[in-house]
């Protein structure tokens, strides 16, 4: 079989994300040029019209996210892509998508911030913004990946989660993963599960309630332009989608928005693990820094040190149970990330002994290296400087 028949290519992370989105059935993209995510927009501008989908470059980041909300409610699987400054601007409409329960995928190929920051350098400083960037209590799904094949797979999962739970899903990639090249194998369509939009079975002429859950809790959708007329608002609303100030309805809505994801954290958790079975030191990492962490772990194993790596792919809802389990027997826990400890604080909150959790980071726009990791672990383990 030729490489083309097996669909093997050598691509950037951003292109793998595009391939994953197309595999998952994306039909609409609205965006605005921004480094280091622009390749996603460029490639979808070429690909979407080929499959009858729509690409539009909007006037700003806010408008892009709004157009995504509109397109999704009109029936298309929709996404946008951006980086830090654009992610800040999108928060308003991300909140709208949370409130109105609009399935969509938002890619943030992270750069160093705050503000314009280091547009072409690596960082993972938007982890908490993905969780809490928009105002008000809510929950969100955020996922990440460290390699090109994983970017492809996680992008498909992001669309699947968005459709299943009617929620925006954030893909938190970083500059290194977005721009590095690796082998990508695209399986034949049908091999990986793709969740299609759950359409309402309510017949024409019968009242459709956009926020009336089925027995399994899922909310079937109708499309603008389809067989039912319905209302969507960013205000607190009832099962009809109309505004309410009723305290019971308001309470129920907020609990629903939070619980539908937080209560399923274990189902939403995606991770990879390396040499954890007998690990005395457990490293926790994600995105490009997990590559350095893995390099370190494998080097240690060769020297007989029992180190292991838990690589998180779901960051939000934070997989508490998983982290507790995987660190239960560890003497030390090291969190490797390129920020001031945004996931470290989550880990400290769930383990029995938070004083045994150490942050290994870099904040200068450079990828944290295996030797950065080694030098800190040596000190903590008492193996000298």
């Amino acid at each position, binding site marked *: 079989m030729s490489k083309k028949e097996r669909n093997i290519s050598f691509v950037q992370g951003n292109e793998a994300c595009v391939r994953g989105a197309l595999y998952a059935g994306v*039909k*609409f993209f*609205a965006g605005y040029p921004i480094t280091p995510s622009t390749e996603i927009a460029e490639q979808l501008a*070429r690909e979407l*019209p*080929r499959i*009858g989908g*729509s690409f*539009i470059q*909007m*006037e*700003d980041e*806010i*408008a*892009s996210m*709004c*157009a*995504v*909300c*509109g*397109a*999704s*409610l*009109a*029936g*298309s699987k*929709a996404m946008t892509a951006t980086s830090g400054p654009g992610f800040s601007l999108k928060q*308003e*409409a991300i909140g*709208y998508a949370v409130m109105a329960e609009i399935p969509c995928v938002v890619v943030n190929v992270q750069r160093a911030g705050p503000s314009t920051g280091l547009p072409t350098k690596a960082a993972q400083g938007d982890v908490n913004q993905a969780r809490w960037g928009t105002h008000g209590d809510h929950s969100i799904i955020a996922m990440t990946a460290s390699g090109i094949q994983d970017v492809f797979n996680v992008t498909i999962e992001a669309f699947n989660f968005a459709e299943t739970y009617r929620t925006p899903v954030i893909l938190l990639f970083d500059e290194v993963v977005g721009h590095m090249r690796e082998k990508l194998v695209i399986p034949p369509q049908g091999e990986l599960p793709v969740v299609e939009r759950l359409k309402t079975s309510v017949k024409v002429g019968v009242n459709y309630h956009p926020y009336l859950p089925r027995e399994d809790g899922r909310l079937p959708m109708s*499309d*603008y*332009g389809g*067989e039912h*007329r*319905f*209302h*969507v*608002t*960013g*205000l607190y609303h009832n099962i009809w989608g*109309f*505004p309410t100030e009723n305290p019971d309805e308001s309470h129920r809505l907020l609990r629903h928005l939070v619980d539908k994801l937080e209560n399923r954290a274990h189902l939403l958790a995606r991770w990879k693990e390396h040499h954890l079975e007998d690990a005395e030191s457990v490293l926790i990492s994600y995105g490009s820094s997990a590559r350095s962490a893995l390099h370190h772990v494998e080097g240690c194993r060769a020297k007989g040190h029992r180190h292991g790596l838990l690589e998180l792919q779901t960051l939000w809802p934070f997989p508490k149970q998983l982290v507790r389990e995987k660190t239960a027997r560890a003497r030390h826990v090291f969190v490797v990330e390129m920020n001031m400890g945004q996931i470290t604080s989550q880990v400290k909150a769930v383990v029995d002994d938070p004083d045994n959790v150490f942050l290994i980071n870099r904040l200068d726009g450079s990828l944290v290296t295996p030797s950065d990791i080694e030098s800190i672990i040596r000190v903590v383990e008492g193996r000298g400087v």
Partner: protein
Amino acid sequence: MSVQDLIRQRFFPHLWCPGCGHGIVLNNLLRVIDAEGYDPYSLCMVSGIGCSSRVSGYVNFHTMHTMHGRALACATGIKLTKPHLKVLVPMGDGDAMAIGGNHFIHACRRNIDLTAIVLNNRIYGMTGGQYSPLSGPGVLATTAPYSSIDNMFDTVKLASGAGASFVARTTAFHVREIQSILKKAIAHKGFSVVEILVGCPTYFGRKNKLGGQVELMEHYRDSTVPIGSKKLEENPHLIQRGIFVEEERAEYCAEYARIIERAVKEQ
């Protein structure tokens, strides 16, 4: 079909203040839709935030009540996805021209087939009477207690300059004109902007000692003239009403359909 079938009757009476001009516009919009025989399933209304944006809750179409200023951006996503829908976008002056100003000019430039209805009462009503970009100098508002020094946009000039292919202005007093203009605006293939001057007796009228709705209606009757009226020679400050721009130009969704055709062929 009657007008009653186009509304969600259970939400009436509406939430607008007595004397507010928004109800007049809604009334005439529904009459146009009824008279033209539009299927309500082919209509979508997208609105932002403010008094005018509550229109979307009252009409029995596909409706989306979005964020402040963002209605046109959301509507763009809907229209590109379902180009057969007639998409109506009612907006207030602050919603359309301040926080939504960027979306407004770019929707004009794209000439995407949406109907923007700017309900201009020269004040932020929902938040209690602050000045807007359409208030103009000398207006009193809660945030301009010594009178506003801000110059105003001219919606018609802004929309025309930005590239809208249908631009019109009328007032809540001129109800027949509202109907004739809306009829053309909705049928127009391209971005249409209809500015309707409406009275806000609660805040604008009261703050500026212009009286109640009756006096505001008289004000719009007396301070406006049809485009090119001879009265302008005596008083150039009179506001012109009518259709300023009505041109056939390449429409965005139609052009994108051609891109799809090309992309499919060239694969």
